[in-house]
């Protein structure tokens, strides 16, 4: 479930500032004077923003970890050893490989009640989480954009489509995800689709409202009177101006996707328990939380930091790319 704090749709008031008194403080109005800050050049602003840098850096680090998982001192995450059960973090122990060999291994994050290495499971879990997050965002955006464009351009379909979207939004996202995954049996594909579906209405709404408002802009009307065909207007004038808010929205969906997957796995209705996800690791450690909290805390911290990074990145992107959603300075 995305927490989109600005969909609260404030009653909009438009103020006419004929003469742009506000900008005038830095521009003499008599001569044909130099400019007010505009959009092209936004990408350099993005790169300089602190939130984007911090969030982006951390995410790149995670991607690196995900790719480098086999070489970071891990073992195969499904390996276990009954002799090494419930070890506290930092302890030495043994682990049995698939061939039957026994290796000496230091369990940096401890082991679970099967004797599996938490550290390895957490590191490999990075792969799953990132894939789920990005895939969810991609699916939700793709479908949402198409539906939003349709709703914005085809009046007749608009009414019904938005009602259906309202219906989907009326059912709390977690419940939809839980129900769908339970019905379809957990696998990567079903989890991604189940989490993406509740996110689609918000994207649709966003695209639709963008389309509707951009169509009212004088430069779109100018394009119409210059004889530009509708499809070209959509591609050349409307869509490029929707990229920014959609990138921001996509980032938040990614964060929500990672979080929701963890919750689903934690409740036992997510990916199968043998796939190492942070949620699964935590689910496994529930029963013995009192004595062995490390099962929950290590993956939990990783999860929180990941989602935090994504959200910080999203905030930074929103501040630089989408002036209407951004906070004031």
């Amino acid at each position: 479930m995305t927490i989109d704090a600005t969909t609260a749709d404030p009653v909009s008031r438009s103020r006419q500032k004929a003469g742009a008194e506000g900008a005038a403080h830095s521009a003499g109005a008599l001569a044909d004077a130099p400019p007010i800050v505009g959009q092209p050049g936004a990408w350099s602003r993005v790169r300089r923003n602190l939130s984007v840098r911090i969030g982006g850096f951390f995410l790149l680090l995670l991607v690196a970890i995900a790719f480098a998982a086999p070489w970071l001192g891990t073992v195969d995450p499904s390996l276990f050893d009954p002799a090494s059960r419930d070890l506290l973090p930092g302890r030495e122990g043994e682990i049995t490989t698939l061939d039957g060999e026994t290796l000496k291994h230091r369990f940096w994050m401890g082991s679970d009640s099967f004797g599996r290495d938490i550290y390895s499971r957490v590191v490999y879990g990075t792969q799953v989480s990132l894939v789920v997050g990005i895939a969810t965002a991609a699916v939700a955006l793709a479908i949402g954009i198409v539906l939003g464009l349709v709703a914005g351009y085809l009046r007749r379909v608009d009414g019904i489509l938005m009602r259906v979207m309202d219906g989907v939004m009326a059912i709390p996202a977690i419940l939809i995800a839980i129900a769908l995954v339970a019905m379809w049996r957990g696998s990567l594909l079903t989890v991604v689709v189940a989490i993406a579906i509740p996110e689609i209405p918000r994207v649709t709404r966003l695209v639709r409202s963008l389309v509707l408002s951009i169509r009212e802009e004088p430069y779109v009307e100018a394009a119409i009177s210059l004889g530009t065909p509708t499809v070209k207007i959509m591609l050349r004038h409307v869509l490029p101006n929707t990229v920014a808010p959609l990138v921001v929205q996509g980032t938040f969906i990614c964060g929500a996707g990672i979080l929701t997957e963890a919750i689903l796995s934690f409740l036992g209705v997510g990916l199968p328990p043998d796939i190492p996800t942070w949620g699964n690791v935590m689910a496994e450690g529930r029963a013995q939380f009192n004595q062995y909290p490390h099962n929950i805390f290590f993956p939990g911290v990783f999860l929180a930091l990941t989602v935090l990074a994504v959200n910080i990145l999203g905030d930074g992107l929103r501040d630089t790319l989408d002036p209407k959603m951004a906070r004031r300075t």
Partner: protein
Amino acid sequence: MGRFLVRRLLATLPVLAIVAVLVFAMLRLTPGDPAAVLAGDAATTEQIARIRSGLGLDRSIAEQFVIWAGRMLTGDLGESFYYKTKVTDLIGQRLEPTLSLAALTITIAVVVAVPLGVLAAWRFGGWLDRGLMAFSVLGFSIPIFVLAYLLIWAVSLQLGWLPVQGYRRLADGIGPWFRHLLLPSITLSVIYIALIARVTRASVLETLGEDYIRTARAKGLREGRVLVRHALANAAVPIATVIGIGIALLIGGVVVTESVYAIPGLGRLTVDAVLARDFPTIQGVILLFSFAYVLINLLVDVSYVFLDPRIRY
């Protein structure tokens, strides 16, 4: 006023209808045969067929939906496969804990978040503002169950101030009821506070930039009055909106919170039903939650009329 209420109610009907269709469709999308699942591995084809016709699964989808919808409207949500009792009874038993949790959470969240948001907007860029925004991002990022375990570990296990898990009915005394609910409510309210505070801050900030605030200051009014009577009063609509929309978050959070804190409410019921593939219960609970959400937002819509005299339906 009455006419307006009727109109708003009628406007929600299509949404409720679509919710019903979606809930029905969701659970009919199951691959495989619910009757076979129910009958078990050792059942004969005959037994399965009997169960199937008993469940009405041999009729067309449209027929099934009409029958189901008809029963739902008369309050019959069917019988749970797993618990072998009427779904409505099940829900009735679990209602009080969830309502208690929700009520306490909403109260805490609103009482804490709104003043914080107003103050943060007033002292824009100050330490309160930055602190609140940082808290807000954290609140959205830490998963509820991680936060729950953190609080349990710190407050209950290490400090021993509050009980770890469980629920006490109101009838058994307010003290125990409150003590058992405090930690879960705080956990659940964190994300709600983050959301409401953010929107309050944004909304008040926007209002503070409006011309009538300038007029109010030009009148020589005290800052406190400007903030409350002029800024907050005009920022109220988005804040009310987000309180309504946030209920969806709340419902999702309830499921997880009840799970961690072992509270025997509707959230736990949902998870148990899903794990047991208990369709009637799952349907019943999702329907209940969704309808409640729609109705709460209807209430929020109605409240607009009182908050903003310009809004007339």
